[in-house]
Each structure stands twice: as C-alpha cells, then as structure tokens.
C-alpha cells in the first residue's frame, strides 16, 4: 500500500480545519442576529451544524461505499453466471460431440479451466472489495453512533442541568405570580369599596345641603372634612399600591424573561435529541473474512500493528467482536463494579441496545468516567485513569 507523505497529511489536516472553520462561520452568522443569548445559541448552532454537517459527511461516505458494495455484488453475480454458462456449454459440447473430438474437447476444457481460475480470482478480488466496503460502512455507522451518543450525552447533560436549576425557579416564579395576583385582586376590591364609599359621601353631602339646620351643621362639616381627607388617603393608598404592584410586575417580568431565555435554550437542546439519525445495518458475513487492515484507524491501527509485530496477529484470524452497550456495562460492573460502578441509566436506551465494536464501547466508558470524575468525584474514588485503561484492557481479554 502506498504511504502518504507528510505534505499530503498536512493537506488533509488543512481541509479538516477548513471544514471546522466553515461550520464556525455559519454558526457565527446565526449568532450575530441573536443579541444577548450569543454563547448559548452558538453551542446549539454548532451542535446542529455538526450534526448535519459532519454526520452528513459520513452518510455520503457510507452511500459511496454502499454503491461499491452493490457494484461488487453485481460483478460477482455476473462472473458467477459467466462461469456457470461456460461450464454448461462445455458439458453440452461433451455430450453432443461424437467420437474423435476428445483432443479438441480437452483443449477447450483446459482453456475453460484457465479462464475459470482467472474469473474466480476476479470474484475473490471483488468479494474482498465488497467486504472492505461493508466494513467501512460499519465503521462509518459506528463512528456516527459514537459521535451521536457523545453529543447526545452532552445535550442531555445540559438539559439535566437546565431542568435542575430552572424547575424550582419556575415554582417560585409561579408562586410570586400568584401573590401579585392576590395583591391585584385585593386592590380591585379596594377600588370597588372606594367607589361605593365615594357614593355614600356624595349622598351624605346631598343630605347635608338639603338639611334645615344651616347654623348648626358646623360639627358635621368637620366630619365631612375628615371624610374627604380619608378619601384622599384612600386614593393615595390605591395609587401607591398600584405603583408598587406595577414595579413588582416589571421586576418579575425581567426575571421571567431570563427564565424564558433558558426555557428556549432547553427546548432547542431538547429538539436536538429528537433528531433521528439514520443508520445503515450491514451484517457481518459469517464465513468470509474481509480485509480489515485497511480500514483500521488511529490508535487502534497502531495497537494492532504492534500486536502484529509481536507475532500475534488477530487481524488475520478474527474481527473485532461487537456487544451491546448494555452487555458491556454489565460485564464491566461484574468485573470492576466494586471499584467504579457504572449505572446503565446514564446512557440513552437507544444507545444501550446498539451493538458496537469494543473500541467504541470503551469510548463510552471513558466518557462516563471523565464525566463522573468532574461532577461526582466520590463515585470515582481512588480509581485513576490508569486503572481505567488497565481495566478496559483486561475486560477486552475477558470478553
């Protein structure tokens, strides 16, 4: 296999960086129009952009390989038919030809055998190509699952935190709304009473004007004066309370607006987890052994190469086994649960059921370990990252 040189590597790196820059640019533009909530929207947009952009890229790669699989299968079928057809033609010739044609027939058979061997070689080559493409599709799908799970875990983490902080806050806001409502109700009642009392005062004044005791009404005039004072006080109280109520309503509206911002962010994050990503299912072929060495990547590739160097080549004899995340976590807890127990509820149900290759499962365990170490140190205890790696390696051997 041709080796890639450093310059080409750099080109790929640059292309990758450019892709990230592009995504950031798009997300950035969306942010400019959103004022206050810049950082939050930026995260959401990035999630969206990456979910659609990067996963879409793997969809396209997957589709390309699927086409290759289909083409290879068509060619295999065609070549199989070609062999079968020639075999039947030779058989017919042998049946139909008379005595004395043995020489020609055996020559034809010899040619056919040579051709058959050539075709079989081509079939084998096509099968290898098909298997390689199938493994690639599985790799892309696994990669999508791992990325999807990682982002889902991040999103779930955000949702959990927002809910944890916002829910009790919402209750308090609701309570305040009720109290301000009660105040408004009391003020309304007070206003009705004030109107009723005002009418009573007017009636009293009318009665006073119509009264005969002109010279004697001084005492009443004093009381009426007091009533008028008290009515002015009523109005003052009413206006004061209305002002207070409005000031508090404004304050509450500000608090509510802030909470609203988080409600929106929560809903936007929640919608991210609702997006279903399509996964192609390519079952592994039981007896055939596809060429895996060309599709291994990163550390895995290095690890395997080392094994091969040590003369223990797993590549030539077996493929990476797959387990559901649930099985893997169960096994983890069985062997290492006493040191670091993993609650399978931490994963999405969908993720738990999916079958994955061990490196991807290991990634999930690493992610949970990291998360726990950051958020709940007591659950990790003295179990170090080194212990984790050792345990993962041991678990790989047990499985």
């Amino acid at each position, binding site marked *: *296999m041709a*080796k*890639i040189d450093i310059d*080409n*590597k750099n080109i*790929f*790196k640059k292309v*990758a960086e450019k*892709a990230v820059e592009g995504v950031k640019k798009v997300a950035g533009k969306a942010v400019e129009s959103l004022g206050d909530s810049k*950082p939050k929207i930026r995260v959401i947009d*990035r999630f969206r952009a*990456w979910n659609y952009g*990067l996963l879409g*890229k793997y969809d396209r790669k997957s589709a390309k390989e699927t086409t290759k699989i289909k083409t290879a299968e068509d060619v295999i079928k065609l070549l199989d038919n070609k062999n079968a057809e020639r075999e039947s033609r030779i058989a017919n010739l042998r049946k139909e030809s008379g005595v004395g044609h043995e020489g020609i027939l055996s020559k034809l058979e010899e040619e056919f055998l040579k051709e058959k061997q050539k075709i079989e070689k081509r079939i084998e080559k096509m099968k290898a190509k098909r298997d390689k493409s199938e493994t690639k599709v599985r*790799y892309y799908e696994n990669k999508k699952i791992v*990325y999807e799970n*990682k*982002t889902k875990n*991040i999103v779930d*983490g*955000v949702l959990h*935190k927002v809910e944890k*902080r*916002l829910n009790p*806050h919402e209750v*308090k806001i609701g309570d*305040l709304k009720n*109290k301000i409502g*009660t*105040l408004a109700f*009391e*003020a309304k009642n*007070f206003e009705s*009473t*004030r109107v009723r*009392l005002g009418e009573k*005062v007017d009636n*009293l004044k009318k*009665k*006073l004007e119509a*009264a005969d*005791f002109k010279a*004697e*009404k001084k005492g*009443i005039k004093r*009381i009426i004066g007091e*009533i008028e004072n*008290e009515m002015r006080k009523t109005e003052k*109280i009413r206006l004061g*309370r209305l002002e207070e109520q409005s000031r508090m309503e404004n*304050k509450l509206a*500000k*608090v509510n607006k802030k*909470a609203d911002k*988080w409600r929106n*962010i929560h809903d936007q994050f929640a919608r991210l987890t609702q997006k279903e990503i399509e996964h192609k299912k390519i079952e592994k072929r039981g007896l055939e052994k596809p060429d895996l060495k*060309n*599709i291994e*990547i*990163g550390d895995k590739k290095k690890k395997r190469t080392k094994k091969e160097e040590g003369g223990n080549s797993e590549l030539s004899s077996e493929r990476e086994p797959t387990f559901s995340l649930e099985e893997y976590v169960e096994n983890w807890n069985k062997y290492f649960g006493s040191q670091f127990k993993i609650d399978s509820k931490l994963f999405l149900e969908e993720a738990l059921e999916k079958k994955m290759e061990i490196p991807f499962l290991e990634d999930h365990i690493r992610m949970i370990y990291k998360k726990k170490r950051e958020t709940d140190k007591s659950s990790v205890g003295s179990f170090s990252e080194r212990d984790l790696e050792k345990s993962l390696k041991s678990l790989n051997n047990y499985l």
Partner: protein
Amino acid sequence: MDQNNTQKTAQEEELEKEAEELLAEIKKTNDDFEKKSGVLLEEIGKDLNDVEKESEEIDKDLEATLEEADKDIDKATEEFMKDDYENDEEENDNDEE
C-alpha cells in the same frame, strides 16, 4: 318652634351619626387594605429579591454549563475530525493502490 328645633337637632344628630359611621368605615377600609396589601407587598418584595438573586446565579451557572458543553463538543468534534482525515489518508492510500 320648639318642635321644629327638636326636629332639626334630631336630623343633625342623625346625619352626624351617619357621617361618623361613614368616616369609621372609610378608615377601617383604608387600614385593612393598607395592612393586608402591606403584608403581601413585603412578602412579594422579599420573594422577588430571592428570585432575582437566584436568577443571576442560574444565569452564571448555566452559562458555565453551556461553556462546558461548548468545550465538550469541541473535543468530540476534534476527535471526530482527527479520525476523519486519518481515514481519508487511508482512503487515499486505497486510491493509489
């Protein structure tokens, strides 16, 4: 004449009584409302302060959560992209085959 004066006095007393009762009613209404709404306002003011304070804390806390998520997604994407071009490299190798 005496009868007329008596009537006037009775009328005046009656109106005076009515005015005093009305004054008492207004005072009581004012006092009651002032007291009741005062208690409510104090309670609302206190709760509002708490909620405002909490709102600030929530903002800070959740901003930090988002920043953390931002970093996490960065890291996840970095890993994703890293594998991506390593895989491209491998693809390129195949093309050259």
